[in-house]
């Protein structure tokens, strides 16, 4: 029977730190589609991520720009609301989504990321599942 390696301490510390990101009051939009997992892996292509929580959708087009990425965000239903782009390796970047449901964000550090969309009442805020970009 194989023996599981003793993990470095940082694996454990990351697990412990994850608890601080607990947001039980915020609904999670699950990752339904990731073009990275379905397309032939051509270099330099745009990656499309689609998240859903009920009838609310968040589509993110990711373009790699070196160590950072650019994001084009589209939300359904469209609303002029705030979206918080929350990369693990950088500060939260706040963007306003236009009435057409679109927003962009450049120079987002690569790595795990979640986007919190502040849909206005009666809708509740939704955040996307964590995903690596």
């Amino acid at each position, binding site marked *: 029977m*194989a023996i599981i390696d003793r993990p470095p301490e940082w694996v454990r510390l990351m*697990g412990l730190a994850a608890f601080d990101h607990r947001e039980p009051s915020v609904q999670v939009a699950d990752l339904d589609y990731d073009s*990275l997992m*379905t397309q032939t*892996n051509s*270099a330099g292509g745009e990656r499309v991520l689609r998240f859903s929580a009920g009838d609310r959708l968040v589509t993110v087009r990711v373009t790699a720009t070196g160590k950072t990425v650019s994001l084009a965000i589209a939300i359904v239903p469209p609303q002029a609301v705030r979206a918080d782009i929350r990369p693990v390796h950088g500060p939260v970047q706040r963007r306003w989504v236009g009435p057409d449901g679109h927003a962009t964000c450049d120079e987002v550090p690569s790595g795990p990321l979640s986007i919190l969309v502040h849909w206005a009442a009666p809708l509740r805020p939704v955040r996307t599942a964590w995903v690596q970009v």
Partner: protein
Amino acid sequence: MTAAAIEIADVPTRLATPEELVARAIEGDRAAWETLVDLYSGLIWSVTRQFRLCDADAADVAQTAWMRLLEHIDRLRDASRIGPWLATTARRECLRTVAHRRRVVLTGDEGDLDRVDHAQTDLDASLLAVERSQDVGSAVAQLPQRWRDIMLLLTADPPTPYEEIALRLQVPIGSIGPTRRRCLRRLEALLDR
């Protein structure tokens, strides 16, 4: 209170099952979450090792897997299967990372990841080890409280000497060996069910 009494109070009094830990973590119990992290850090690390990721990529995979578990923990269909769920999640994140690095041809369907992959025998063996460990944990949880305390101390790393166990648990030193034998027989019976 004497020093020995203080030490007795520090002895873990009960081994929780993964289902119990998950239920408590859902309620916001940080200690339960920390125990889950202790139980499954080795599994996540093992998965990242399978993909030979550099430390930076392995760190992103580990962090994403933990975050995914936290956001999904109240929706696990079978909390006792948390190990395999976490391993599958970590494997998917490893594949994303590898795909991002443009080293492999990708699978067409994430469902493919759930099928048997003969290249993953080491990982499967690791998962079996984890599940076996969980079975043992569940069996130990069914032992009488005093027996569990003794077994916890005997299986510590390094094992606690009989003299210290007798002192900490206030039991005759001559009873520890026979209790250990009875514990092992009971565990064997429970695991054979």
